């Protein structure tokens, strides 16, 4: 494992975010099984360290002046690091009326520009283009800010990945792109996604700094990302990083994973990032067991409060679908549902 450059309380904070991610997802799984989650549930079990360790390397502010991050579907932990609230995430998954998108969008597809995150859409690769533009705006305004985004091994095959990242590289925009190699894109293994031996090989093709690390070592992810973030802030341009991890659950909860070879998941369970981090904190004297237990208990309380808030929240009113397509024009309601039918002219 890598050497820790973080202070004791920071190391504990990282532990808190790993715990928070795992426990929120566990509660979401329970809600899913109770049919309270609308649609799919996308777990990051076993790869929480990639999201938490990388986001922790950013400059976080609450006033819209810090760095900006855009997650992929399995980077819930990165949103928590940036300040997203567990209740908001649960409300998103439950399509509640007071979710950040008022029921219009799902899961981690939501934004908070003050805290510094931009939710993804489902079209893979496009966030590389979007975050290239965010990074470009920092460059244009000469702001000391960095944009960071994630992409899965599968989405690295898209044209959007190439167009967005190439533009950022050419412009020397302060963009850090993390390829989260978790071995599968839905059911498709990495061997069917690229002929490269590793994704970080692609960095040379874009003329940028590239590095990869063990994605289940949260501090290794932090250190590698910090270096790239510092480079970007110093005007040295974009970086392409690869974190190697493993998706222990299916693509979503419904996925039976029959395509996974026997024994593969079990092997990766032994490399669980949370258990490894906990063992290291204890072994190297960065934490006592009761401190970690207290953090886990605090998280459990917070997550339970969030679940209560999300469960008791109301659903959106049907006609809320109408507003906000344009800033200055209203969308017409279906005429068959309006009082004006008699007056049609």
């Amino acid at each position, binding site marked *: 494992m890598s050497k820790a450059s973080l202070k004791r309380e920071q190391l504990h904070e990282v532990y808190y975010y790993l715990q928070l991610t795992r426990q929120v997802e566990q509660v979401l799984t329970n809600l899913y099984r109770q049919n309270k989650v609308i649609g799919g549930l996308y777990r990051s079990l076993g790869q929480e360290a990639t999201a938490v360790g990388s986001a922790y390397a950013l400059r976080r502010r609450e006033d819209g002046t810090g760095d900006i991050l855009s997650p992929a579907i399995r980077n819930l932990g990165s949103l928590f690091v940036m300040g997203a609230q567990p209740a908001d995430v649960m409300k998103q998954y439950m399509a509640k009326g007071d979710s950040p998108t008022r029921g219009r*969008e799902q899961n981690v597809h939501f934004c908070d520009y003050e805290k510094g995150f931009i939710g993804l859409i489902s079209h893979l690769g496009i966030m590389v283009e979007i975050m290239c533009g965010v990074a470009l705006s920092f460059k244009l305004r000469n702001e000391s800010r960095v944009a960071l985004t994630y992409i899965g091994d599968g989405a690295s095959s898209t044209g959007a990945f190439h167009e967005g990242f190439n*533009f950022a590289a050419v412009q020397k925009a302060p963009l850090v792109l993390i390829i989260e190699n978790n071995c599968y894109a839905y059911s498709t293994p990495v061997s069917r996604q690229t002929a490269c031996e590793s994704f970080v090989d692609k960095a040379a093709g874009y003329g940028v700094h590239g590095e990869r690390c063990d994605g289940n070592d949260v501090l290794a992810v932090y250190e590698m990302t910090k270096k790239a973030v510092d480079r970007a802030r110093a005007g040295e341009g974009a970086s392409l990083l690869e974190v190697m991890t493993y998706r222990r659950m299916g693509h979503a909860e419904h996925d039976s994973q029959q395509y996974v070879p026997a024994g593969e998941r079990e092997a990766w369970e032994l490399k669980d990032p949370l258990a490894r981090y906990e063992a290291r904190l204890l072994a190297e004297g960065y934490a006592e067991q009761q401190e970690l237990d207290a953090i886990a208990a605090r998280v459990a309380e917070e997550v339970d409060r969030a679940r209560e808030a999300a469960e008791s929240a109301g659903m959106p009113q049907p006609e809320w679908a109408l507003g906000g397509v344009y800033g200055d024009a209203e969308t017409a309601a279906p005429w068959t549902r309006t009082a004006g039918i008699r007056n049609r002219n």
Partner: protein
Amino acid sequence: MDENSGNQEQELGIRDTGEILATVLEKPEHVRNTQDGKPVTMLEAIREALWEEMERDPNVFIMGEDIGVYGGAFKMTEGFIDHFGENRIIDTPISEAGFTGAAAGAAHMGLRPVVEMQFMDFVSCAYEPLTNYIATSRWRHAGAMPLVVRGPVGGGVRGGPFHSQNPEMAFFHTPGLKIVYPSTARDAKGLLKAAIRDDDPVLYFEHKKLYRAPFLREVLPKDDYVVPLGKSRTHRAGKDISIITYGMMVHESAKAADELSRDNIDVEIIDLRTLLPLDEDAIIESVKKTNRVLVVHEDTRTGGIAGEISMRINERAFEYLDAPPLRVTAIDTPVPYSPPLEDYYLPQVSDIVTACRYLAKY
């Protein structure tokens, strides 16, 4: 900061760093025609709008292929890079999706990008960011999208199937986008300024055959005028037949109207100017007056805007009609290259005259 971007920043919680410097160098001659009281072509009007908006608002910047030192394929941004610098006039890699998506990211941060498509035919490459990301952003509570994607469209210049298209209807179906298609120099300047100042994403279509058309040269007002989006213009008032049209076909319809006036057929021409949102009220008002309507567009027939307009008339003015709504359009093929083929493809003045005579007699 102008009012619009102020609202945007308030909504998104983005602070104004005030670190972008507006250029104070003297305006070169080719963007000073209006100021000097000289007439301008449509291309010059668009160029003036771009220049003046960049001077007015430091958040406005332009991205596109070959727009810097070269000044763009049609020389629209000639001389811009010398005055505004390469941070605000960005020569992009050949990647329409990439830089259109990047424009969205910059718009999130409170900038007002103007994206140039070298030819609008290539906007199909940016269909994904435009329809999925940009058009839905405000509705998704992901923030306003103050950006413009503009470029040359249209046939009649022997450009072949990939430099002559009218791709407006590929986007007309997408809630959240606005579509502008001017037909005069005055409208082109005022509509582009309105588009740049608008907080919603605007696709802005410029007919390349009108760019330098001498008959469109006119002296524009010296003041900082805008032409509001979503409002059509009566190009010619008449009482017998309404022609609903836009772009190049406004002028072809006007030629037809001149010819028809010799037969005492009095044609009204409504220039839509903005296709989305559609100025439905103006269409209905005109149809109620003339009771006969012809929609003319250079775009192909199936799925063209004539179908939508006809349905709106059906919904709101059915009992006013003395004849079926008809259309004159391009044929349903790609745009051919060879002159005899392209002329056959495109709607001609004679087609409009024939259709109007049919309607008048109906």
